[in-house]
């Protein structure tokens, strides 16, 4: 399934690339792109375990970019 999230306080393009790399490694994520200019996170995910995948994504993002929040 496809999902788009808005991001807040994404401060630099390098951070966006870092987040993208980190999210790519989360199990259940097929495609991910973090757009620095539009501050959007685009995801393609497995249907099952949706909630756990999202939780995991938020966790890894907090780790690499503590400032940036994923808005629901």
């Amino acid at each position, binding site marked *: 399934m496809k999902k788009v999230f808005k991001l*807040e*306080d994404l401060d*630099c*393009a*390098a951070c966006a690339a870092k987040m993208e790399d980190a999210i790519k490694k989360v199990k259940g994520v097929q495609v991910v*792109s973090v757009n*620095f*200019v*539009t501050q959007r996170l685009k995801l393609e995910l497995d249907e099952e375990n949706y909630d756990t995948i999202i939780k995991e994504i938020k966790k890894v993002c907090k780790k*690499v970019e503590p400032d940036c929040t994923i808005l629901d």
Partner: protein
Amino acid sequence: MTKKERKSLIKIIIAMILLIMVSILPVNDIVKLGLYIITYLIVGYDVVWKAIKNLFTGQVFDEHFLMSLATIGAFATGEYLEAVLVMLLYQIGELFQSYAVGKSRRQITELMDIRPDYANIEQDGKLVKVAPEEVSLGDEIVVKPGEKIPLDGIVKDGESMLDTSALTGESVPRKAKINDTVLSGCINKTGILKIEVTKEFSESTASKILDLVENASTKKAKTENFITKFARYYTPIVVVLALCLAFLPPIFIRDLTVLDCVKRSMTFLVISCPCALVISVPLGFFGGIGGASRQGILIKGSNYLEALSNTKTIIFDKTGTLTEGKFQVVKTESKDKDKLLEIAVLAESFSSHPIALAIREKAKKQLDQKRIKNVKEVAGKGITAKIDGKEVYVGNIKLLTDHKIECPEVSDIGTIIYVALEKEFLGYIVIADKVKENAKETLEELKHKNHITTTVMLTGDKKEIASSIAKEVGVDKVYSELLPQDKVDKLEMILKDQVGENKVAFVGDGINDAPVLTRADVGIAMGALGSDAAIEASDVVIMDDDISKINDAINLSQRTIRIVKQNIYFAIGIKVFFLILGALGVANMMEAVFADVGVSVIAILNSMRALNVKK
């Protein structure tokens, strides 16, 4: 300003007030130190905290770590004021940078804001606002003056003028009446329209275009990739250099203490942060893409923007690109032109052939069709009929010679329609596809202003027609009588001749030249508004069929690349300069922070120039 920015601003103001108090109040040194530490913590605790946290997650050497190390180092060496000032300056810089980035983002997204917010649906005699996603096929929506058309559809009732500038960049409003197809993203100017929805929201033009532009940044240009790679090698190199700087010189030079050198190496680290590059380059590219979309030019990725700026050869398709793509009467030749046209119009009044349409359009008036009898279409030749009881012949030369009517040889280029009345030759009409008004100008400008070296025309049309049009618009090379697959072969041939970074662009209408569009380095589709196939096959989409937009597109790409390069040279240049100063101990830490922030902000402001387009 976001919440984070506001919080940071308050902290900065409080810290400034405290600093002023410390310097004017007559207090002893211990109280001063206490006040400095309090100020430092107020303005910088989050930086220090993040540095510590990052250490535990394995992200050593980010800017927070550098700033904490440098300022705490300054405290340790007794330079309290400098420590606080550096942190304060850093925070001001961050705030300014964040504000500038936010502003640029807003500018870009506003520019591309063609996303409709709602649709009006009639329910129980009342208009209700619903989300465009909720409207289904076949529903009837109402669009009031001043509102955006939310979904593609057909006008069922009403008449209005539409502002299509968000889609095409064209500022002259377009008329919409019953049974016209209207596209989402246009703004309704004058009347109320009732529209039957023909495409769901996600399939509608506005959504598609927005999707395209927003995803454009995922296709990265070489320059952009270079920056990412650069950052990867840059940081470790800088750290190693800093370590050398701290510990090597004291061994060789007696006058330098380790403490001095450690200070210098920290300054060196503070200067080294590559923010300016990492932020301004993608912003520049995106600015260029956003600015282009404002003019009705969609560029599908920064890589195409870059290729467009390196284009040296442009290949044009003839029909619909250099020419209008529709038949028009270009000449009438007779002693009595009005009569000639009248007979032709009457004879052709029942036909739907493109030539008949062209003749009727020229006459612009309806004639009494009762005057015409016995209409006979002679396949491949023309029409014979009786008008006002007299025998008329309207068709090509074969029709007239078949009926033994004498007529002169005509050498005009195009389709020639002969007209004869009662076995007597009356005159002829020349019908041809007209060259676009600004085609010649555009081609000249391409060569003189935009460094295009070769222009080529490909066409399936006959040789005489092709060369006459080529001469008229002034292309360098013509290849005519080509089948669609021949066009690809010719393109391959041209591609092979290119040297270095030189790129080849192909311009077509996307209808039957999709293979060529995809094969070219840059495929440009013209007049693509509403044609999904053309948008799909091309790399650059020009929404209307104004050929001069090719000039605009190339101009804009060259300008954007220029801006991006300026930023790269400027940022790296200033950085290297300050790195040397820092290493030699000439620049102190405050100047270092200033250089870092200053370069970033200037680069961001510069990259926003890419967004400005001439209107």
